[in-house]
């Protein structure tokens, strides 16, 4: 190969590397949701904004252009197989209700206990969240404190039984997440509940 041609080729390669180095190629692909609900990601750069709102909608930002396209499951697997394989196990949520006017779990909640144990055991580093909820009687400050207080009580009990403090978090959501929507001021036993989330 003549020396001049080699030099020119080297110059072209160097320029391409420089251009790419300024802004490494970025690819973004929206994945389908397990439950099919509608979602979106906006991708903004110096050339404008692209909104990805369909499964496998994708955009590739190169050194010279921003190119929207539709990706394939094969491309996702080829480029992101390792990252997706490293994805942590998703949370499992258990909602426990109580027999009205009594301090006892109802039968369904009792049967759920085995599944909670299995879920904890399946995780190398389990986090357990205990979240207290109230119904919509009372004010926010009172309900927030009550929900939190109940969650704290449960957490303390877990600690007494040997679960590592770092692995159990207690929080209260007050009346913000009623299971059964009601007007403010309505006493609704089904909204007085404790969620246990294992993740």
């Amino acid at each position, binding site marked *: 190969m003549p020396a001049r041609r080699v030099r020119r080729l080297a110059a072209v390669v160097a320029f391409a590397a420089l251009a790419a180095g300024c802004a*490494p190629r*970025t690819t*973004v692909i*929206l*994945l389908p*949701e397990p439950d099919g609900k509608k*979602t*979106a*990601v*906006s*991708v*903004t*750069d*110096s050339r404008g904004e692209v909104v990805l709102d369909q499964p496998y909608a994708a955009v590739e*930002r190169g050194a010279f252009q921003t190119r929207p396209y539709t990706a394939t499951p094969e491309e*996702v697997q080829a*480029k*992101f197989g*390792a*990252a*997706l394989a*490293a*994805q*942590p*196990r*998703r*949370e499992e949520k258990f909602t*426990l209700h*109580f*027999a009205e006017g009594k*301090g*006892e*779990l109802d039968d369904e909640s*009792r049967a759920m*206990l085995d599944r*909670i*144990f299995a879920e*904890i055991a399946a*995780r*190398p*580093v*389990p986090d357990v969240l205990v979240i207290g909820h109230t119904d919509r009687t*009372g004010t926010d400050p009172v309900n927030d404190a*009550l929900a*939190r207080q*109940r969650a704290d009580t*449960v957490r303390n*009990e877990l600690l007494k*039984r040997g679960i*590592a403090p*770092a*692995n159990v*978090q207690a*929080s*209260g*959501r*007050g009346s*913000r997440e009623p299971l059964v929507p009601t007007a403010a001021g309505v006493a609704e*036993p089904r909204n007085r509940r*404790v969620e246990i989330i294992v993740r």
Partner: protein
Amino acid sequence: MAAPAATFGVLDMIRSIARFVPAAMLLAAASLASAADIGQIKTSKGDVSIERGGATLPGTVGTRLEAADVLRTGPDGSAGVTMSDNSLLSIGPNSVLALDAYRFDTTTHQGQFDATLSKGSLAVVSGKIAKQSPDAMKVRTPASVLGVRGTEFVVEVGG
């Protein structure tokens, strides 16, 4: 508001749990908690490290994360993180992911999450911060800013 009696029902249930869960399993996962904890490494393969305040720590399973931590993987590495708002972030080989800023209110679900992927591959399942406030979660790359509106997506830089 709720009948105070409900609390005792939960305690009964906890006692039942405690009877069945092997103590060794619970103790094995023990680690130091701090108020600054924002997430935890749940999966780790190959070469994974964390840069924190100038120090380099091994990115082993169970490691608690703090804001401003930077995760790095080697050519054979991959890692998965669960944030306190339930966001899941996982990176493939040769990746650098910075957890720039993070705050999350467990009562109101208000918060902010800024992360930067400067190279490599990242898979995201957004959590409660993005669900509560669209665009409160942002993922940056050297050339782009991603606004997350409650979703699952993947990002690659370079490659």
